[in-house]
């Protein structure tokens, strides 16, 4: 069984480079048919909401929305930290396709099952 690649994104519009890099890693992994998850935490959870990623474009990279679309189309999963989403008022109704709100236990479970992680 292939190793899950779990890439952590903690930033949103306030740091476009840190917002983009986890999705680049996830997108490469998903394109190689590796199970891939981008875990959104802290301000990064906003990326899971409709319309938020549009306009995030760090010079030298593809626009974030394009990378997310490619990532999801290749089977990548977007996990939004529930503990981070709740105080920001983010619910399932706000999420983009491919995104879901997850619990800390789900993240720990993925890691305990052998996911390789990287954070930005």
């Amino acid at each position, binding site marked *: 069984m292939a190793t899950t690649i779990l890439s952590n994104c903690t930033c949103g519009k306030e740091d476009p480079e840190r917002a983009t890099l986890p999705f*680049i*890693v996830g*997108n*490469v*992994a*998903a*394109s*190689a*048919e*590796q199970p891939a998850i981008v875990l959104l935490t802290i301000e990064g959870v906003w990326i899971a909401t409709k319309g938020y990623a549009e306009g995030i474009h760090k010079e*030298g*990279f*593809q626009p974030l929305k394009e990378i997310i679309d*490619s990532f999801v189309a*290749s089977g990548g999963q977007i996990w939004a930290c529930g503990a981070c989403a709740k105080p920001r008022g983010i619910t399932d109704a706000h999420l983009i396709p491919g995104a879901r709100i997850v619990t800390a236990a789900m993240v720990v479970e993925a890691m305990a099952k052998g996911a390789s992680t990287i954070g930005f």
Partner: protein
Amino acid sequence: MSQTPASAATLDAYGLTCGALEPLIARRLRELAPGDVLEIRSDQEEAADGIRAWTWLSGHALVAIEQDDPAPRARYYVRKKTPQP
């Protein structure tokens, strides 16, 4: 690496950098049949390492590399894998 194989399709990837190239290769390979070869043209220094690593991960095969002028221009030949039964 063997001699240059006949390619079923060509991907002009000049200017594409780290992280953008490999998902595009994957997209083009999806349009081909198992065993078909995709020719990828790149002018990026890191393409060789990126394609080598990505083919190892994905199970497709990097079967040939042809260097062009000026360096680091090159053509990479990737054979689409055959699904396992």
